[in-house]
């Protein structure tokens, strides 16, 4: 009967000689059937089959139209069929024969062939309960409902058995009696001795053939019953969680097998309790009867599309004999130079020599809890160094160890597994929950690094990629002066950094500078105010020393104004020098030493009405009882009209698109408005003012500014500076701050074409 089957057909399919019915229509025997429902199409049942050509096996799927054959019993385990219409596709590196059309040559037949060559990875462990076979025993049907069948598809082990045994494949009691024939073990790697616990089961026993070990990379949700042998490379803590479904606990661990396959395993609730204590990092275990599901890439950075979930029915068996084929850990080290070009937030492994390490600091997290942080510099052969930050418990364990090694003059090698690349002022590496740190690991790379370091690395210059670009941390936020009050800038916890385009209206002349302590404190001078001892020396309280010569540092109180408002700011040394055009010391000498009043006044006058771009730090400070918002000039730049204009054009556009309603104008934070415009609508029409201009409020156009309207009284036809209500007070009051009404009034002069809102 063996001639009936097309010998070697499966081999040809595997090596792609045969890909579809166009190449060949082989005759095969169906040895197993399994009904399942595809995830994507829950309403459709599909039947998986195992086909044999007498020597080998291959998995297949029946087209839906063929399902009835199975249901009617025409097609069953043992049937011989010819594949009239099929294609081969490769799923997860396995070949699957998808059959669209077939012809049943014989419905019933004994299993043919002497299957010497064991089927490849995924062809075992299938839930091959034969549902439609009317000769099912009861126990057989009870299996079908189960998720993980205990019946190992007797891959290969069928061959030398009498047909009767295989026919009653679904008869579990037969399985008990039978000893697995040693010759037909599918040997992928070392075969562990059949664990005893698999064989002693009750009458409802399952077919307990020894587990077939498959590589981790071959795991997929369609693998039926599988077993993997792997080493635990990392183990997470037992975590408790609370979600809509209630409370729970979970822990996870990562596995590595001899092929380099890695996968994460999670155990929930009861399973967590069951297995938590048994899993030890570095030990080898056999795992089976786990569930596979797609990996959560967000938390799981292992290179596997799936992750395993174990439940209470899963089994873990420790392997006591060592397996050198399975490494302790798999690394994919990148050189530090590569990190520069890698994407932020990606997960990498890195190894390097620790050139320096700082003590642990405590950081307050956003959530309010505190956490430990410790950073070190890591150098490697690429000539680059990177800052590695460790968080939490790492600080005290590996961190401390590294610190002591460094303190005693050593330069230990550190390997980081699963560190995340972060970006702030360049790139840096931080530890995450699943990171692992290895101090002085026993790896080839570690040895190489040590040698390199001894030879040249110690003294070689290393460019740090971690603080290279001390870039513009803050984006230039352009505001108008009135927005400082309107938006209550500076009142939140942190200071606000803004940029304004404003003119210096006034500068306080007294106390434009102070006597400062020149003593260096690290790399910065102390700069605290020193007191005059009277004898020509100056005393600094902070440094507790006296100096003969003090520094003079600017502390300019300036009043800035733009088209929306006024504010006082303080400018210190650097900004001061830029504004005044000379050092504080020189200016001080001009005034006090040389007593050159005229020159001094000249200089001061030049400052007034100069326009700059000011970068301000705005913060609310409490003096006594009162909190006041204070602004400090951080940087002064000359106005670049071209770019400024563009900014304004952009703002105009923005205004436009926000609609032309008055509400939109007033609310527009991009430009700022003069706050007190509303009264204009409330007033009766046809106001005539001092200038004899008839103006009617009704005629005032809506949208985009309009006829000049006064901010103070709301009338049209004039502006606040000329307002009959306030005019007498305002005129002539340029310097000295004082009685400016409202925000948005002009300093003086006749403002042309004052558009109420920009």
């Amino acid at each position, binding site marked *: 009967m063996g001639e009936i089957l097309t010998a070697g057909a499966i081999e040809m399919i595997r090596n792609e000689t045969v890909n579809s019915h166009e190449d060949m229509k082989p005759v095969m025997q169906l040895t197993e059937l399994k009904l399942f429902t595809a995830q994507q199409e829950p309403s459709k049942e599909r039947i998986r089959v195992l086909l044999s050509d007498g020597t080998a096996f291959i998995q297949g799927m029946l087209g839906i139209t063929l399902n009835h054959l199975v249901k009617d019993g025409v097609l069953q385990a043992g049937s011989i069929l010819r594949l009239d219409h099929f294609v081969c596709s490769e799923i997860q590196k396995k070949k699957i024969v998808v059959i669209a059309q077939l012809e049943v040559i014989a419905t019933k037949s004994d299993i043919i062939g002497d299957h010497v060559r064991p089927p490849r990875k995924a062809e075992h462990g299938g839930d091959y309960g034969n549902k439609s076979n009317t000769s099912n025993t009861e126990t057989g049907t009870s299996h079908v409902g189960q998720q993980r069948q205990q019946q190992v598809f007797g891959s290969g082990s069928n061959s030398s058995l009498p047909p009767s045994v295989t026919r009653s494949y679904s008869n579990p009691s037969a399985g008990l009696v039978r000893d697995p024939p040693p010759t037909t073990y599918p040997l992928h790697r070392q075969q562990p001795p059949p664990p005893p616990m698999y064989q002693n089961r009750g009458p409802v026993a399952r077919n307990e053939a020894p587990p077939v070990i498959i590589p981790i990379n071959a795991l997929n949700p369609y693998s039926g019953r599988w077993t993997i042998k792997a080493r635990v490379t990392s183990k997470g803590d037992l975590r408790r969680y609370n979600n809509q479904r209630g409370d729970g606990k979970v822990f996870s661990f990562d596995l590595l097998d001899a092929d380099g396959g890695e996968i994460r395993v999670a155990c929930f609730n009861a399973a967590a309790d069951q297995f938590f204590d048994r899993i030890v990092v570095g030990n080898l275990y056999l795992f089976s009867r786990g569930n596979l599901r797609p990996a959560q890439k967000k938390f799981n950075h292992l290179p596997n599309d799936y992750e395993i979930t174990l439940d209470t029915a899963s089994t873990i068996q420790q392997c006591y004999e060592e397996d050198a084929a399975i490494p302790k850990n798999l690394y994919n080290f990148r050189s530090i130079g590569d990190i520069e070009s890698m994407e932020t937030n990606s997960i990498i492994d890195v190894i390097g020599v620790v050139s320096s390490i700082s003590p642990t600091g405590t950081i307050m997290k956003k959530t309010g809890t505190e956490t430990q942080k410790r950073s070190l510099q890591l150098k490697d052969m690429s000539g680059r160094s990177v800052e590695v930050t460790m968080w939490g418990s790492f600080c005290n364990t590996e961190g401390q160890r590294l610190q002591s090694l460094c303190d005693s003059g050593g330069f230990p090698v550190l390997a980081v597994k699963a560190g995340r690349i972060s970006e702030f002022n360049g790139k840096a590496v931080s530890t995450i929950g699943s990171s692992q740190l290895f101090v002085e690991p026993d790896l080839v790379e570690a040895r190489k690094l040590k040698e390199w370091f001894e030879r040249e690395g110690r003294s070689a210059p290393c460019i740090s990629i971690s603080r290279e670009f001390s870039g513009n941390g803050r984006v230039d936020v352009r505001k108008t002066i009135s927005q400082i009050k309107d938006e209550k800038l500076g009142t939140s916890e942190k200071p606000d950094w803004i940029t304004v385009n404003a003119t210096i209206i006034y500068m306080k002349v007294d106390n434009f500078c102070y006597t400062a302590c020149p003593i260096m404190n690290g790399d910065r001078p102390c700069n605290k105010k020193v007191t005059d001892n009277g004898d020509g020396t100056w005393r600094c309280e902070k440094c507790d020393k006296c100096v003969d010569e003090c520094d003079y540092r600017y502390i300019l109180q300036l009043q800035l104004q733009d088209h929306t408002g006024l504010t006082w700011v303080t400018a210190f040394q650097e900004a001061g020098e830029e504004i005044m055009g000379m050092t504080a010391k020189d200016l001080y000498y001009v005034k006090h030493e040389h007593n050159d009043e005229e020159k001094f006044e000249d200089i001061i006058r030049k400052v007034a009405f100069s326009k700059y771009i000011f970068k301000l730090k705005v913060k609310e400070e409490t003096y006594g009882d009162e909190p006041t918002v204070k602004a400090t000039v951080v940087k002064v730049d000359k106005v670049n*009209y*071209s770019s400024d*204009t*563009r900014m304004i*054009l952009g703002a*105009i556009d923005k205004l*436009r698109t926000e609609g032309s309603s008055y509400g939109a104008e007033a609310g527009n934070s991009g430009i700022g408005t003069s706050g007190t415009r509303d009264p204009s609508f409330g007033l009766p029409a046809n106001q005539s003012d001092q200038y004899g201009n008839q103006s009617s409020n009704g005629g005032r*156009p809506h949208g*985009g*500014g*309009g006829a000049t309207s006064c901010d103070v009284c709301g009338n049209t036809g004039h502006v606040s500076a000329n307002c009959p209500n306030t005019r007498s007070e305002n005129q002539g009051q340029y310097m000295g701050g004082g009685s400016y009404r409202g925000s948005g009034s002009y300093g003086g002069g006749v403002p042309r*074409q004052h*558009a109420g809102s920009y």
Partner: protein
Amino acid sequence: MDTSSPSAFVNGSLMRRYIGQKVRTVIQVVGSDVGSVVGKSTDDLQIIVKGSPPTTTTPSTYLEVIGIAENENSIRAEVWTNFGNSFDPVNYNELCKLANGEFKHLFI
């Protein structure tokens, strides 16, 4: 300030609205002839300015001209101002568009 004869901000394409009227525009000098200067407007159209510029105009300097628009691409200049070499035509162009469009009421 003498506001008796206001001039409208125009670029190349807006000139036609003001034929016969006083306009002002900025051009980038392309070349010069006797009695006229050929320039490029801020919206990349060619403008001819009749009259004599105050100094020899080197190509690529920006000149502001105020004068009567004779037709849609030539001006009879009355006032010339040298704006130098660094001038942002894009901004000026936008100004012209705004000054003749949405915000016309703010100008003449």
